């Protein structure tokens, strides 16, 4: 079949589409009418009074009548109208081309001049396939949050086509396999499938409208319940709405059922054709076969998690694991593979996450025009163990006039551009954290290095070691700035990458059997800024509005903090005094705790409670903590770390106050 025949075939399929669509509409109308009919039957209907010429009055009650032509026509009209309106709405939305679909499923466009190696490779492959198929180069989009192996092509014309791939696709496929997948999508563009698919999305949206309405009703109910407590007449309304929602969902599921049937009927056969054309384009059956095998062997398969992707599931490279009523939009994987690769042994291929870093330590080959490479020669870490602090700076913290933009600039300027660039790189950022966690003594270092080698790869070890060398002498306030710069980069990791990263950091923190202050801080920072992002937990409710309820916790906190920097008992007492003066309202309740009641475990528990305090209390406590550590006019590394840990654990921010 050449592509003219294929396009023709696609057009013929459109006729079938019309038939299926008509069937679907009839199905939905019938379902709606059934429900409406029963409703009338049970509610009693209306009473009509006749008066004949003789003056006799007859009453006729229409209750119990299930069938009524007029009613049926009204129901049919309204239902069809809703479906067509939905169709129109979606079609107008899609008229903009493939970008609308791509945005809908949560993708982002890739800059063709990207410096990211993986993205560049993807862009290159798309250009290659455009040459091979003689089509204009489509825009390239990436679905960053999807770890399954999948891809799609969308657009109404080749001129506005886009190709989207998942992050999993880029990470787990070789160049040849990715080429096969992209070629498959190109053949959808060339064979006219894409156009058909776009039309299909519009129509499906119409059929699924009713169930969408039901879902929307449920969502609105959620908000109603929160507000409507105590009112009596609200209860009945809620029950009625709930019933209506359930009914809409049940009726709507018939629409969804037909929608899936249409998707399956239209797209399954086309997938074989696209696979065959992909092989023709690339002249290499191993590429696409390999990609299919990896889908079969990967735990995430070809999953697409985006909720909106359901209406576009027929556009994807493989079944996205979406609810399909037994109607798969794609032929089974093994059938597809064995049609491409005769004599396939039936084995899927298992893929692992790629190692943390592609390239190794920068130690001796830093020649290159890439900023990351020269990074390690340019950085200059200050080797002071202590920095001077001024109480005036600290007292003003939190005032908006004191949010010192200049100071922020200075701090950022003090860090070399190369380091900053390195922090923006996902590989270097992960290695930075590992490097900071590496132990100082040789024996444990050996253990950690061999663990890292296994779990993150050889290159990551080299990077981590060089970061470790580089930052060994640095003051913690600098390390903390670097850490902060890495956080947004780390948020871009995919879910499995994040899980691996957290597992490694946990292991490294626990490796020596105890948690030191730096590790404690790192844990708090990652928990607050990274895990919150990936695990989606929101803020904590404020429970404590009075400081007096938290006196024990505050006491533990400032006792520990005062103890960290103190060289002898005298210093401890003055530091504690400075802090407790700031919390004068607690008065008698404060007294220095013995060392056995302090320590990180106790602090950790105290912080859990303090997190639930009101912002003003947090500010007060944080202020007192600061006074406890900087009473001697100096901020040691340990003190800076502890202060940061306290701030992050309580969920408040710590503006810069240290002048370098």
């Amino acid at each position, binding site marked *: 079949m050449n592509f003219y025949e294929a396009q023709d075939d696609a057009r013929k399929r459109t006729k079938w589409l019309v038939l299926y669509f008509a069937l679907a509409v009839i199905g939905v109308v019938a379902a709606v009418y059934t429900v409406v009919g029963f409703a009338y039957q049970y509610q009693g209907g209306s009473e009509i009074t006749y008066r004949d010429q003789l003056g006799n009055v007859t009453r006729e009650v229409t209750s119990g009548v299930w069938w009524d032509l007029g009613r049926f026509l009204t129901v049919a009209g309204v239902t069809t109208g809703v479906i067509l309106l939905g169709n129109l709405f979606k079609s107008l939305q899609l008229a903009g081309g493939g970008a609308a679909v791509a945005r809908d499923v949560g993708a982002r466009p890739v800059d063709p001049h990207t410096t990211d*190696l993986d993205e*560049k*490779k993807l862009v*290159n*492959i798309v*250009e*290659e*396939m455009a*040459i*091979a198929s*003689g089509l204009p180069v489509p825009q390239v989009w990436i679905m960053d949050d999807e770890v399954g192996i999948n891809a799609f092509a969308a657009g109404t014309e080749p001129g506005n086509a886009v190709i989207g791939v998942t992050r999993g696709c880029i990470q787990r496929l070789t*160049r040849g396999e990715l*080429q096969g997948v992209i070629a498959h999508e190109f053949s959808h563009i060339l064979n006219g499938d894409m156009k058909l698919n776009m039309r299909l999305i519009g129509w499906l949206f119409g059929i699924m409208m009713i169930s969408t309405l039901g879902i929307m009703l449920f969502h609105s109910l959620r908000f109603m319940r929160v507000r409507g407590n105590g009112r009596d007449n609200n209860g009945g309304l809620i029950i009625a709405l709930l019933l209506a929602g359930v009914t809409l969902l049940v009726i709507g599921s018939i629409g969804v059922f037909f929608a899936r049937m249409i998707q399956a009927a239209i797209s399954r056969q086309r997938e*074989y*054709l696209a*696979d*065959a054309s992909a*092989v*023709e384009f690339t*002249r*290499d*059956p191993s590429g696409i076969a390999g990609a299919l095998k990896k889908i079969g062997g990967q735990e995430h398969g070809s999953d697409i998690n985006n909720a909106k992707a359901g209406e576009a599931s027929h556009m994807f490279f493989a079944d996205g694991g979406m609810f399909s009523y037994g109607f798969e939009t794609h032929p089974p994987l093994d059938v597809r593979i064995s*049609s*491409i690769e005769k004599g396939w042994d039936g084995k899927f291929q298992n893929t692992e996450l790629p190692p943390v870093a*592609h*390239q*190794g330590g920068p130690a*001796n*080959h830093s*020649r*290159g*025009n*890439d900023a*990351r*490479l020269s990074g390690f020669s340019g950085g200059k870490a200050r080797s002071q163990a202590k920095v001077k602090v001024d109480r005036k700076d600290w007292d003003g913290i939190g005032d908006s006039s004191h949010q010192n933009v200049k100071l922020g600039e200075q701090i950022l300027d003090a860090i070399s551009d190369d380091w900053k660039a390195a922090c923006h790189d996902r590989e270097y950022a992960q290695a930075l954290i590992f490097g900071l966690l590496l132990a100082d003594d040789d024996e444990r270092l050996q253990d950690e290095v061999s663990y890292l080698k296994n779990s993150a790869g050889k*290159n990551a070890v080299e990077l981590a070691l060089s970061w470790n060398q580089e930052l060994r002498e640095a003051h913690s306030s600098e390390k903390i700035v670097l850490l902060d710069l890495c956080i947004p980069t780390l948020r871009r990791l995919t879910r499995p990458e994040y899980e691996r990263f957290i597992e490694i950091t946990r292991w490294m923190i626990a490796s020596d059997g105890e948690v030191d202050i730096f590790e404690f801080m790192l844990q708090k920072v990652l928990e607050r800024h990274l895990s919150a992002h990936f695990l989606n937990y929101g803020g904590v409710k404020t429970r404590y509005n009075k400081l007096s309820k938290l006196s024990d916790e505050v006491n533990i906190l400032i006792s520990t903090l005062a103890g960290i920097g103190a060289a002898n008992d005298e210093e401890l007492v003055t530091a504690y005094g400075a802090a407790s003066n700031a919390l004068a309202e607690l008065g008698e309740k404060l007294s220095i705790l013995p060392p056995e009641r302090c320590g990180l475990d106790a602090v950790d528990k105290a912080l859990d409670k303090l997190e639930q305090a009101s912002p003003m209390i947090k500010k007060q406590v944080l202020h007192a903590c600061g006074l406890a550590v900087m009473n001697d006019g100096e901020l040691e590394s340990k003190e800076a770390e502890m202060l940061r840990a306290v701030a992050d654990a309580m969920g408040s921010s710590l503006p810069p106050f240290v002048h370098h």
Partner: protein
Amino acid sequence: MFNKQQIKKNMWITIIVLVVVAVLIAFWLMGMYNGLVKSRNRYKNAFSQIDVQLKRRYDLIPNLVETAKSYMKHESETLEAVIRARNSANDARKSVSPDDSVSMGALAAAETSLGSSMGSFIGLSESYPDLKSNQNMMQLTEELTTTENKVGFSRQSYNDSVTMYNNKCETFPSSIFAGIFNFNQAILFEVSDDKERESVKVSF
């Protein structure tokens, strides 16, 4: 009289028919000529696509060698061979014309030898892990791979359009036109390469 009129009428009909036939033939010939011109333009355009990609490739190779130099100090011979092959291929590219079999042959030969020396260079570089993991080298290798693929794919479409054009030049009756108006045969661009892939067909 009547007969004369009849003859005159017949003559007119004949003339009209002849004119119509002549016009039709003229249109047909024009179409044939235009078809030849179109397919000539098509293969020329396809060739200029190859040219763009080849130029890009020849620009990339010196960068690649420059990056590799500091790592592969003992392989200077191989590196020089690559540069020599690249230079001669570049010269051949500059003077090539797709309807001249001599220059096309020269380019194809230069490409083949460049391909083999690049092959041994890449093979050698495999044994330098530091080089392989160099960021710059990785970028350049990716660029080179995609450019080579693009050359390959545009070569396919060039060869397709050349075949179509040559068929027109050789088959009767357009072959007459091709002869009169000097439509020269175009030359296929075939590079012998070990990993040259055969066209694969999958049937369902």
